[in-house]
């Protein structure tokens, strides 16, 4: 009886917090959608006008006329797929080695890798550009993909997850006569499913939104990605917010869908791997 009441109360409190938080989290998103239907005057009106006087798709039409969205979608999707897949592979493989294997200079190498987070991207951009121009990659897909696939972030995060897995797995694997790669690929990687989904969601998002590097590394319209195309809507003298938000909604929708699909895997994460701790 008492336990039930307690449960109910804690349920209500949980919902209360979640709903309150949701409102705060939703406001800018809703505002972005509403603004995408406004006229320019409505978009910058003071005090803020929440709802457009007239609902129509004019802004979306204008954006599609001005920007070759289909082409940019295609480029962005190709780059994002390539980068995130290779990134995950390289990252998880090295994460496994750092978490599970012993070798000389392990710590030195690990700290060395971490040092890329100690310098702002704005500073390493120029030498990075010098390297890709030396390689003749400027304005090619190589420039968009290769420099981005080495994600120390992914490596570090997955290292933490591998390190948290029970050590017995390893020994069990060895008794079976598995190679290190099989141990990584067949046993430990599947156990990290939910963290892999999490890191992939974040990587996709990062890759999708990355602006500075694609802008520096490419210049032709053929190589242009969404983030760069949208940045051109922010002019020297003020921004046409109604158009920018329409473009923003179009660029965002795929991310929201991707995340909606991705988040389902969080629920099933460990249950499916069928391994007991």
């Amino acid at each position: 009886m008492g336990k039930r009441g307690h449960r109910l109360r804690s349920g209500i409190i949980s919902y209360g917090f979640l709903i309150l938080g949701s409102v705060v989290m939703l406001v800018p998103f809703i505002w972005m959608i509403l603004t995408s239907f406004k006229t320019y005057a409505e978009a910058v009106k003071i005090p803020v006008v929440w709802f457009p006087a007239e609902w129509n798709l004019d802004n979306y039409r204008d954006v599609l006329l001005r920007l070759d969205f289909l082409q940019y979608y295609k480029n962005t999707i190709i780059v994002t797929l390539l980068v995130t897949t290779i990134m995950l592979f390289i990252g998880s493989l090295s994460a496994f080695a750092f978490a599970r294997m012993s070798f000389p200079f392990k710590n030195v190498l690990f700290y060395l890798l971490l040092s890329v987070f100690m310098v702002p991207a704005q500073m390493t951009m120029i030498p990075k550009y010098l390297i890709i121009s030396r390689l003749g990659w400027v304005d090619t897909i190589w420039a968009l993909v290769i420099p981005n696939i080495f994600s120390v972030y992914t490596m570090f995060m997955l290292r933490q997850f591998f390190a948290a897995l029970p050590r017995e797995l390893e020994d069990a694997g060895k008794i079976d006569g598995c190679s290190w790669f099989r141990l990584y690929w067949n046993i430990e990687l599947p156990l990290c499913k939910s963290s892999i989904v999490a890191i992939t969601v974040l990587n996709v998002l990062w890759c999708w939104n990355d602006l500075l590097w694609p802008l520096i590394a490419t210049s032709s319209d053929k190589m242009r990605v969404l983030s760069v195309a949208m940045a051109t809507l922010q002019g020297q003298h003020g921004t046409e917010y109604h158009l920018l938000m329409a473009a923003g909604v179009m660029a965002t929708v795929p991310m929201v869908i991707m995340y909606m699909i991705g988040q389902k895997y969080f629920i099933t994460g460990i249950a499916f791997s069928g391994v007991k701790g």
Partner: protein
Amino acid sequence: MRRKWKKWTALLAAGMMILSGCGQGSTGEQNAAGGQNAADEAASDVSASTEETEEKGDNGDSAKTVINFYYWDEAQKAGMDELVRLFEESQDDIIVESTIVPFGEYFTKLQTALPTGTGPDVFWMNISAPDYIEPGLLLDITDKIEEAGIDMSKFPEAVTGMYEVEGRIYGIPKDYDGTAVYYNKAIFDEMGVEYPKADWTWEDMLATAQALTNETHYGIVANPDGNSGYQNYVFQNGGNLMDENKMPTVNSEPVVEAIQFLHDLMYKYKVSPTGAEQLEFGYSDMFISGQTAMITDGSWNVNKYYEAMGDDFQIAELPQNVQKGATTHGVAYVIAANSSNTDAAWEFVKFAATKEAQEATAKSAIPAYEGAAEVWKTLYPNQDVQILLDSVDYASPNPRYAKNSTEAAQILTDTISAIWLDENADIQAMLDEAQEKMLEVINEE
């Protein structure tokens, strides 16, 4: 499983080949033959997707020279596309590939790309020109201009001067800016106030602003921007932010008076939103929303206000005090000195300098060529945009200090912002300090 593993190794090997191929820290023995094949295989996989992205349009005519052209304003895309089309029609040898680089990152992009020679051949330039002229990144086109017989006097002097260093010319003006007072006709009508007249003065403006101020709106906004705001008042007061040696004079009497006048509009007469209010609401947005009846602003915003306000948006001359004064500025086409196609690039720039080409680009900026602005004027039939065109006759360019100009200008911007936020600001003292710091920055080696 097996196949997957094989594919991954191939990709991995390809990655390693590429990495070791560039000569940095290649380690260990490579399984030469196997690695190479795998690399090729994977490379062809990736380049297959490259092919999809790239549609090679000019395979047939390999004899044509391609030049790259960068600019930053998406709003001028129609004009630029038209320019390129007309140019390509006018000859058979050169193709122009244009790229819009967002303004926020435009100079960052130039800074990375130009020195390596992977940047544009032709591009837009603004007041930052000297930064690029000094290290020799812009092509000196003085002789080419002479040879082609281009009459530079057809362009406003204030603009050509921006691209001239020691008598050498580095750019062909594309457009120029005018400055004016913009007003909201509806508020004037509502308050029964007479519209601003030509040759009006600071006192007239103050009186008008006082008559327009009530609890729902201010009369004018004294905006803290140099270009569209305080600098105009400095010129009108017979002052300047720098002397003929390009050294700052920001604590000179005319400057201090002009700043004091604007400060008084905010805090003494209370006819302008305060610095804090402008920060919170944005001065330009306040004008659009009818929270202030007048604003001083540049021709670049005409389209924005017109789109938002329709014919309530009207244009008046800037007020005068000691004299008439306004700010101007202009964008130019320049050529990269290390371009491998300087001749083709010059052909394009030469074409862009013609009246015909300037008229074609007149959709959203005032074209620089004398008389080419008629097209632009037809876009705003109910506004007196001639005022903006005329303002260039009495306008002075933005200051460009002798050295470390952007850093010096930032000191002034910081000081102005501080003055704007502080009701009790000691303007003379603050500008004295700014002057001193600016001199320090400019004289630094």
